């Protein structure tokens, strides 16, 4: 590593830390209904939304209606994206006459975009028309991220309100998140991306004759507008197959820095918003610090692994699946960010990372996507871990566990355990299934333990709603499209429903005032406990599987063994 590499990392972290309170306090104003500077710009649009759809913004609902609205809205999105893929050949804006998508691929893709996963079993430039990418996928990029924020807001209200059934209004949460946060940031970001060379037009492609006389078809399309939201909304689904490694999707080191920041920007800032909304900035800061510590630890291990030498390639820098303009440091920084944040976009091929760097990405996903995590999803996932930590700490000292003055009782702990188990069950059971079936094994691109890593990564990515892949795996098969599709559904709604149930139950409770006997959840001791609980749960669940994949892969590489 050079000094310049360290400078880039430090600067990345500094900008992230500096932006957190700025965006965080703006989002607080938006969600709290205070005056903010976007109100004169888009306020009329919010009113228009309610007027044209018949939503009463004043009406608040209990957790069951909130959940029902959320599920109905998501279901409609799923059905729509599913249908337009099945009939894309008959629909407009399909200049190169791409054929209709197979039903299982269409199922997988529509689940994937609805659940904020953006797992892509298909190749963008050769499968989906402009129409599907815009009207189908870009819309889901916005609303799936807004859905994540809505769940978080309901949970925060559950924690901060007392003796009520009301958790807020799903439609206003969805609308405000989209209009005041995602949309303005995306417009600004998309235009900056075009200034760096990302394409934004409505052509299908440009055919050129290369200098050497060959024909080259360069795909075009409204890429910048989709890339902006796929980064900001922790979606991750690229316009082109190579995602943000594609030079027209991520042309310069500056576009790369901004795209990386966009991955973590909103999830990090939401910790600040959280602190303000629950009435204690320290609570938000505690969560931010726990996330940051886990992030920096993963990053350090990953960088160390990628810059290490091995007997197979000696001291050659490991440039397989990496771009010259970005180099190794930026590829690793991205891989750690995208896996922490449930984003899933890539600027280097994770399949070709050194085994330990690949494992860090996998662990970040397996821990439950709570290191910053998905927009909204990361923070509500973290609160689940906080509930478990408070519960365990309560057991240790023999005191009724409390969080933010609310008693944590059997119901909350049961729901929290379901939310933690749901994705983990998907990872373990589906990976095992794929490893012993022909349908699972015939899709592998690599032999030996690395082949198993491809499977394990795929189901982790689906269950964690991440979307990145060890992309050698040919996932566009009936078996993978269906199992990964169901994995994504369980990983998303198996967490969202318990979280909303907790929110509903917590809202009913009284708030006990802080006393000398209160177990503090805003100090370094708690940060340590929280990190320990996260690592123990994640570690105990997944270490055996990791040992069979990346760990053996690492040991073999150090003995120079290939397959």
């Amino acid at each position, binding site marked *: 590593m050079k000094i*310049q590499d360290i*400078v*880039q990392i430090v600067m990345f972290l500094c900008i992230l830390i500096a932006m957190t309170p700025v965006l965080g306090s703006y989002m607080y104003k938006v969600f709290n209904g205070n005056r903010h500077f976007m109100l004169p710009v888009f306020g009329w649009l919010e009113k228009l939304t309610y007027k*044209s*759809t*018949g939503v009463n913004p004043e009406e608040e609902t209990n957790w069951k209606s909130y959940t029902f*609205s959320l599920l*109905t*809205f998501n279901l409609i999105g799923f059905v729509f994206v599913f249908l337009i893929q099945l009939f894309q050949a008959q629909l407009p804006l399909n200049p190169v006459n791409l054929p209709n998508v197979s039903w299982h691929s269409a199922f997988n893709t529509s689940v994937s975009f609805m659940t904020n996963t953006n797992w892509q079993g298909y*190749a963008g*430039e050769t499968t989906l028309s402009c129409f599907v990418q815009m009207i189908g996928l870009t*819309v889901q*990029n*916005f609303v799936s991220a807004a859905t994540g924020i809505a769940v978080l807001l309901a949970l925060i209200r559950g924690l901060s309100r007392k003796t009520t059934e009301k958790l807020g209004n799903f439609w206003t949460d969805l609308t405000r998140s*989209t209009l005041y946060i995602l*949309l303005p940031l995306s417009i600004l970001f*998309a*235009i900056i991306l*075009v200034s760096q*060379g990302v*394409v*934004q*037009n409505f052509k299908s492609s*440009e055919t*050129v*004759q290369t*200098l050497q006389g060959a024909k*080259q078809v*360069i*795909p075009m399309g409204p890429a*910048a*507008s989709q890339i902006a939201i796929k980064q900001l909304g922790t979606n991750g689904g690229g316009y*082109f*197959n*190579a995602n943000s*490694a*594609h*030079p*027209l999707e991520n042309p310069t*080191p500056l576009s790369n820095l901004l795209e990386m920041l966009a991955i973590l920007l909103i999830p990090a800032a939401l910790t600040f918003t959280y602190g303000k909304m629950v009435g204690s900035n320290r609570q938000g800061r505690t969560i931010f610090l726990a996330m940051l510590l886990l992030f920096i630890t993963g990053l350090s291990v990953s960088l160390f692994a990628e810059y290490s030498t*091995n007997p*197979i*390639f000696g001291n*050659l820098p490991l*440039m397989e*699946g*990496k771009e*010259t*303009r*970005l180099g190794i440091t930026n590829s690793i920084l991205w891989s750690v960010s995208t896996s922490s944040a449930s984003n899933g976009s*890539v*600027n280097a*091929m994770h399949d070709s990372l050194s*085994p330990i760097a690949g494992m860090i990405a996998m662990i970040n996903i397996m821990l439950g996507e709570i290191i910053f995590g998905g927009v909204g999803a990361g923070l509500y996932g973290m609160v689940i871990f906080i509930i478990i930590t408070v519960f365990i700490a309560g057991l240790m000292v023999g005191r009724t566990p409390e969080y933010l003055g609310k008693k944590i009782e059997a119901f909350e702990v049961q729901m929290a355990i379901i939310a933690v188990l749901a994705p983990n069950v998907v990872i373990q059971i589906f990976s095992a299934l794929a490893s012993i079936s022909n349908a699972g094994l015939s899709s592998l*691109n*690599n032999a030996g333990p*690395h082949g198993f890593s491809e499977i394990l990564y795929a189901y982790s990515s689906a269950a964690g709603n991440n979307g990145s892949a060890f*992309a*050698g795996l040919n996932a566009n098969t009936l078996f993978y499209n269906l199992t990964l599709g169901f994995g994504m559904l369980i990983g998303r709604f198996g967490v969202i429903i318990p979280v909303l149930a907790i929110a509903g139950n917590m809202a009913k409770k009284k708030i006990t005032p802080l006393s000398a006997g209160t177990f503090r959840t805003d100090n370094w001791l708690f940060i340590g406990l929280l990190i320990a609980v996260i690592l123990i749960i994640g570690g105990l669940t997944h270490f055996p599987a990791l040992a069979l994949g990346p760990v053996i*892969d690492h040991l073999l590489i150090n003995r120079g063994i290939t397959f």
Partner: protein
Amino acid sequence: MKTIIISLKVFLFFTILTGIIYPLFVTGVAQVVFPAKANGSLIEFDDRSIGSKFIGQQFDSTIFFTSRPSAISYNPLPSGGSNYGLTNAKLKNLVTERKIRFIAFNRLDSLTDVPSEMLFASASGLDPHISQKSALLQVDRVAKAHKFNTIQKQELIQSVKKLTEPPQFSFLGEERVNVLIMNLELYKMDQNFTNHK
């Protein structure tokens, strides 16, 4: 039932707003403010576009600087890398072969350290860049193919250095040379270029 109707209406509203108006608005602004970049940064040469500044091309002839290995042979439909793991025997063999080929093609000493980006395939398969060192290692061979004299060869070395892009703002990303632009420079330096074809 009321929820379902509201869901449909809200979905329709956001589909129009974020699926149609948003991309159209961004396209409008982009086409007015950055027309060349929004359309792929195409390079015009001899009155036709010969490629995009950002999309690498395959170069096999001795008269050109060569690009990085590509898992898709620089055919962008679709883009992608090899996705070989480091313990994949195919990758190990490819790296050995590419090293032998690069050394033989450029008539280099067999002990030359070939920069790693010339041995490993890129992530997109369309990487337009190589390192300055990789470009300089090719200068002798290219100069010979163009029958350059010593002065012209020195000029070629100078233009490699001139066309080397430093890290952005001097610290972001890596130093690099755009192979297509470097090869276009050869046309300026060699008036009889077309005769070599």
